[in-house]
């Protein structure tokens, strides 16, 4: 009888892989965009079973709520729906297929042949390779009270991440906020209508 952890892993893995295959092979670009939605949700589920709750929420908020909406906007604005030009053309599938197959083979053989060192160090993790500990972290209700209070999975990771962002990662945190600001200004400048050049085709802003 497989553990609940395993069942959820394989469920999310199935969702991720099937929808990612749809993204890669679908002929319709709109279908690909909606398959990407399920990929992002599946990845959020994987974050949850890896006890990264803050990242799971950030994934849903930023990827599903932000990036995917941007992509769908891009698809809708740049495809002439009336001309049925919505099909995504493909090129050079066979070489890409061979290359990707070789790449997958190399990565998987590296991963499966690697001797992964067992870290039992951080007390909040318990022993990751001991499957009972994993189950108790992912489902805190099943652990004994001391186990639950020892692992930080019960408190959530937002506290630790916030502490790290204000201490060890303060400089990257500030830098990334500046990058975000610059990207926003840059995107607004790039996408703005060119007032001096009237010959450019105007986007339909009313819709």
């Amino acid at each position, binding site marked *: 009888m497989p553990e609940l*952890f*395993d069942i959820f892993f394989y469920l999310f893995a199935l969702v991720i892989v099937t929808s990612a295959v749809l993204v*890669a092979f679908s002929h319709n670009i709109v279908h690909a965009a909606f398959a990407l939605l399920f990929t992002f949700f599946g990845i959020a589920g994987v974050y949850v079973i890896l006890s990264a709750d803050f990242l799971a929420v950030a994934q849903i908020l930023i990827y599903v709520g932000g990036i995917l909406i941007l992509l769908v906007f891009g698809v809708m604005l*740049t495809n002439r729906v009336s001309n049925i030009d919505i099909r995504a053309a493909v090129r050079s599938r066979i070489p*890409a297929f061979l290359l990707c197959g070789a790449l997958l083979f190399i*990565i998987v053989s590296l991963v499966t042949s690697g001797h*992964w060192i067992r870290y039992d160090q951080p007390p909040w993790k318990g022993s990751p390779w001991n499957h009972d500990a994993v189950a108790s972290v992912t489902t805190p209700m099943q652990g004994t009270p001391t186990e639950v209070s020892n692992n930080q999975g019960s408190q959530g*990771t937002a506290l630790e991440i916030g502490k790290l962002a204000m201490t060890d990662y303060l400089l990257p945190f500030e830098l990334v906020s500046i990058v975000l600001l610059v990207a*926003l200004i840059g995107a607004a400048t790039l996408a703005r209508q060119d007032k001096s050049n009237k010959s450019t085709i105007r986007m339909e802003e009313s819709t």
Partner: protein
Amino acid sequence: MIPVGLPHFLVLSAVLFVLGIFTMLTRKNAIAVLMGIELILNAANINFVAFTRYGAVNFGGQMAAIFVIVIAACEAAVALAIVLNLYRRSQTISVTEANKLHD
């Protein structure tokens, strides 16, 4: 059946990464290429979080994953702006046909 451990997550992320590479290589539509890039970034993120969970890096991996998500948001915004500009100028977003961003 082997209990799910670190290699399972790494293999899942490898599959996602390869599918992203495939999407990037085969699509002509620039937005579909962007979707491939998002798949690749997510594959990297799964690795970061899995190593945080099973390794001893103590939330460093999750911080890296957050930075990756922020950079992905920046990249999507700027890339979409460029794609819209490209479409306005040349009426195409095919990466094989587009060859200029400026008159």
